């Protein structure tokens, strides 16, 4: 990477790292894992910088794919390190349970959390989410449905807010 490219890369990181880290954090549920994920994806981008027309799209894709790879690896039985004790104190369908959205998100399966992040934070269409996660559109829909149902059970405050609806009318 030459000096000009490095300058561009640094500017990109300065401007876009907060947004990228947001997605990484929500994908992983852990700050350290999110920073790892983002740093590695940025490193990959840095080595291809001169060839990238849309660096942010590349970094996001790299994060999504790397995260999917991590799930697969984890499913092979490797230990997962964690920096947070799960906040879930009872069964997720406990009607009395009141959890923060953060804790509720952590309680979701990896794929469920990813689908929600891609759909509702990154505003990607279902087809693109399916492509990125390597699942069918039908699976995206069913996963979204189950994830939202679980979130609502854990986080009733997430249900439609009539006050907001009224204010917007």
């Amino acid at each position, binding site marked *: 990477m030459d000096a000009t490219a490095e300058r561009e890369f640094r500017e990109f*990181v300065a401007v876009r790292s907060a947004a990228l880290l*947001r997605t990484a954090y929500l994908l992983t549920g852990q700050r350290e894992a999110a920073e790892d994920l983002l740093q590695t994806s*940025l490193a990959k981008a840095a080595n291809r910088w001169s060839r990238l027309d849309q660096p942010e799209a590349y970094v996001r894709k790299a994060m999504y794919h790397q995260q999917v790879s991590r799930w697969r690896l984890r499913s092979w039985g490797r230990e997962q390190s964690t920096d947070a004790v799960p906040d879930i104190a009872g069964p997720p369908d406990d009607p009395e349970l009141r959890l923060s959205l953060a804790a509720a998100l952590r309680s979701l399966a990896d794929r469920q959390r990813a689908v929600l992040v891609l759909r509702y*934070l990154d505003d990607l269409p279902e087809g693109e989410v399916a492509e990125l996660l390597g699942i069918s559109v039908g699976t995206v829909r069913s996963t979204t449905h189950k994830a939202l149902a679980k979130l609502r059970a854990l986080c009733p405050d997430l249900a439609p807010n009539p006050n907001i609806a009224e204010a917007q009318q």
Partner: protein
Amino acid sequence: MSGDTERRLHDELYALGTIEPSRGLADAALREAKQRRRRGITVIAAVAAVVVAVAIAVPLSVRHVSSGPINPGPEQRNVVVAYESWPRGAARQPTWMVLDPKTGKYVEPKIPAAVRRVSGALSKTPDLVISPDGRQYATANGKYVFTRSDAINGSAAGLRKLDPGQTRDEPVSWSADSSRLLIPIQGIGHQQGFRIYDARTKTLGKLVHLPAKPTDTDLVDLAWTDNDTRIAQFRANSKVDIFDLDGTLQRSVSVPKESEPIISPNGRYLSLGKGLFDLQTRRSYPLQLPSAQEVVYPTPIGWLDDDHYVVEWQGKDHDFRLLVLSKSGKLIKSINHPYGTSSLPNTNGKGTTVTLLLGYGADYPANSGARL
């Protein structure tokens, strides 16, 4: 789901994910990028007498790698002689561990403070470059070069001061026979050059000047080529110059613009991201990916021998793969790889290679020289 809930979820997610990135993120990413790049440079010289693996970051598991060497030839067992562990967390820095053959344990390398000092700070473990024969490592910090030989962490070590020193932190690279180190001397506004360090005799060759004076946008990389008899100079303006070891220009070739080409051991071909370029005929051979639905750029990793090269590739199935390709771009072998690797199959000169892995958060078990 109502539009209102969608908005609320978006807002909640947005707020929830709002955390401050580490200040050193760009530096850390560039450092990691450089680490990845260095592996590719090292492999240029990878024709070794002893089977060896240098695991990048954390090998995932012996089970995973037991799918075998990626060479098209018979499988052999390979010993991991060193690996690089990336701790979790912000601005992480890798830590090298090397195999002590006496105990079979992985231990931190013993490196003098003079060569661990980078930008005024004392680095716990500087970047190591393992020789192709797996018996030596080298590290340099711009002012000093250090090698240790006669088995990793053995007693035979050499520390030499570079004078004049490097003006940029450029990677050193081993010759294919593991006897010499190429030390680039270069920097903005300084004349390009290199020195050869003989690790066996601990002698430092004279500074060889190259004609090019790199500009801010035309920095160059150097690499061994032509079976260790010449030095290739890669320029940002899509040009490769080949010099004798005394700095005499032998040939100059324009090549497709790629950020990190890797030259074959015999100096005839360049492995590019998406194929091969023949420096002699100037013909390109695009690689034939296993799936047309490419999602991430393939990255050149290195050469197994003069007839096979390796790229890292990530497919629609999200698994990273190491692809072994023939010169014509035909896929010889593909190995799925959960995390991907930034480098570097190594070879014993007979096409035997190992997979070098990038992983997270777990360390190699410290037991009797893990075998892949």
